């Protein structure tokens, strides 16, 4: 079965290789074919960067608008050497993760509670559903009034926005656990706690992880907004500061850092899925 899957993935490549528009990258194609389909998704981004570099070198693009990729890389390198980059990334990632821990942790706990105990659902769920409809960003004026513009404001915004996806998906995950499995667990003499650990939590896990992935996406968006409004450190500060001095290359470094961190978070979440859901046929092919 494994070989079949691989064949299916590989066969489309020769067909697109005949495309005349990619004739210039023939060498790349030969390599791609030998390695497999892995490089194909990178073709468009690489082509774009090459085009961008050429356009900058020929002077079609003003450096005020968009600096050449090489300059961005240079800026990246200087910032790395000075240690500035690392400090800001650390601050930003720290904020994001702390917000996620608070909001996500609360969402998980409340979701488990309302999903498992009918009383808490009646008590809390409708209130939470009401608050859910307020966009987190609409709270900014209020948050500034409450917390000023320091760290706690940023943490609060991130925590509020990551709370809901995790809460909702945890709640629905618990509710959608196969009742037949629960009945089986009861007839096989599992205690309440065993039933929870062996049947209900694992059954809800795929849904909880979907919530986590949503949250991770939101987490970066809110972080960017919060850091752009005001900050004394972090990637947002780095870019806003660079804007004052018209350092477009550093602004771009900041944007790329956000992209990179977002991608990293997603890879991490996928990794969790593939490990925790490795029993699931839908996740086995990729893992094998």
């Amino acid at each position, binding site marked *: 079965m494994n070989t079949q899957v691989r064949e299916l993935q590989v066969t489309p490549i020769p067909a697109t290789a005949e495309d005349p528009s990619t004739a210039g990258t023939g060498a790349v194609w030969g390599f791609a074919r030998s390695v497999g389909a892995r490089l194909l998704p990178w073709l468009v981004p690489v082509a774009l960067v090459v085009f961008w570099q050429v356009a900058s070198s020929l002077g079609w693009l003003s450096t005020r608008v968009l600096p050449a990729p090489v300059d961005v890389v240079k800026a990246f390198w200087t910032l790395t050497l000075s240690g500035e980059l690392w400090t800001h990334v650390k601050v930003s990632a720290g904020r994001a993760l702390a917000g996620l821990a608070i909001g996500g942790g609360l969402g998980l706990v409340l979701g488990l509670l309302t999903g498992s105990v009918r009383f808490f659902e009646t008590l809390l769920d409708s209130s939470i559903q009401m608050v859910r409809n307020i966009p987190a960003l609409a709270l900014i004026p209020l948050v500034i009034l409450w917390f000023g513009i320091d760290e706690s404001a940023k943490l609060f915004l991130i925590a509020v926005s990551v709370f809901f996806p995790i809460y909702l998906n945890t709640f629905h995950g618990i509710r959608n656990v196969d009742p037949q499995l629960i009945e*089986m667990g009861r*007839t*096989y003499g*599992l205690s309440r706690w065993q039933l929870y650990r062996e049947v209900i939590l694992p059954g809800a896990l795929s849904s909880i992880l979907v919530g986590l992935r949503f949250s991770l996406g939101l987490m970066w968006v809110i972080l960017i907004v919060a850091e752009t409004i005001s900050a004394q450190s972090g990637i947002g500060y780095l870019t806003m500061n660079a804007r004052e001095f018209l350092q477009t290359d550093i602004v771009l470094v900041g944007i790329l850092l956000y992209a990179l961190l977002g991608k990293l978070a997603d890879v991490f979440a996928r990794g969790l899925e593939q490990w925790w859901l490795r*029993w699931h*046929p839908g996740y*086995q092919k990729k893992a094998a």
Partner: protein
Amino acid sequence: MSMSDTTTSDSPRGVKLEARGLSKRYGTRDVLRNTHLKIEPGEFIAIVGRSGCGKSTLLRLVAGLEAASAGTLSTDGKAVNGLHDDTRIMFQEARLLPWRRVLDNVALGLPREQRGRGREVLAQVGLAEREGEWPARLSGGQRQRVALARALVHQPRLLLLDEPLGALDALTRIEMHRLIEGLWQQHRFTALLVTHDVQEAVALADRVILIEDGRIALDQRIDLARPRSQGDPAFAAIEKRILDRVLQKPDAADATPASGTPHWPGPPAHGLRWAI
């Protein structure tokens, strides 16, 4: 290990099951009416009937999954009151936990030090080499074998089988019949099998009980020697008799439970063995 030794060597392992005036109603609908039933320790009982006749309800009452509306139900003289540790049920679907490997499924609810028993029973159902597999990778028949192992690992004194072979193909069913019969003879538990396949009932049971409209309409003892062969004329005769009875709408006069060899008039059911 010592536990398994003592329990398998005990000969009268099965429970004695007794139902008196058992009734169950859902809303205004009577699913089971005033049912009397006595099952001896170690007996293999098959309950047949059309779907919706109340046979699964009887099983769920015995399992303690539901409470009776009236009447009493007792095992070894003690009233059944909720779930019971001596009773295990095998469902229509395997109901394996997809996130646990085969051996962990079998050992579900067992203390850690008894996992060895899980391996033992898994070997008895012929799946020892698949212990590290995910349930999603098994065929339907293999999943039911794992479910059977999971039920037997607790050394139940009463095993309830709720149409566990309904979704399997004919060949796998025959294999499973042999397996269940062999394990039943080895472990001497009392078995209660709900099925709509009369052939399956005759192949396995000491007594076949037909439920019709919530009542026991027939209680037929099967005295064929084991292992039973479906080609045997005596087998075919009993099967046909029960099947004819199932297909025939009951005449009030005819519906006397009999254990002899009464002849039931009715349409011949050639090659037909499904009474759905």
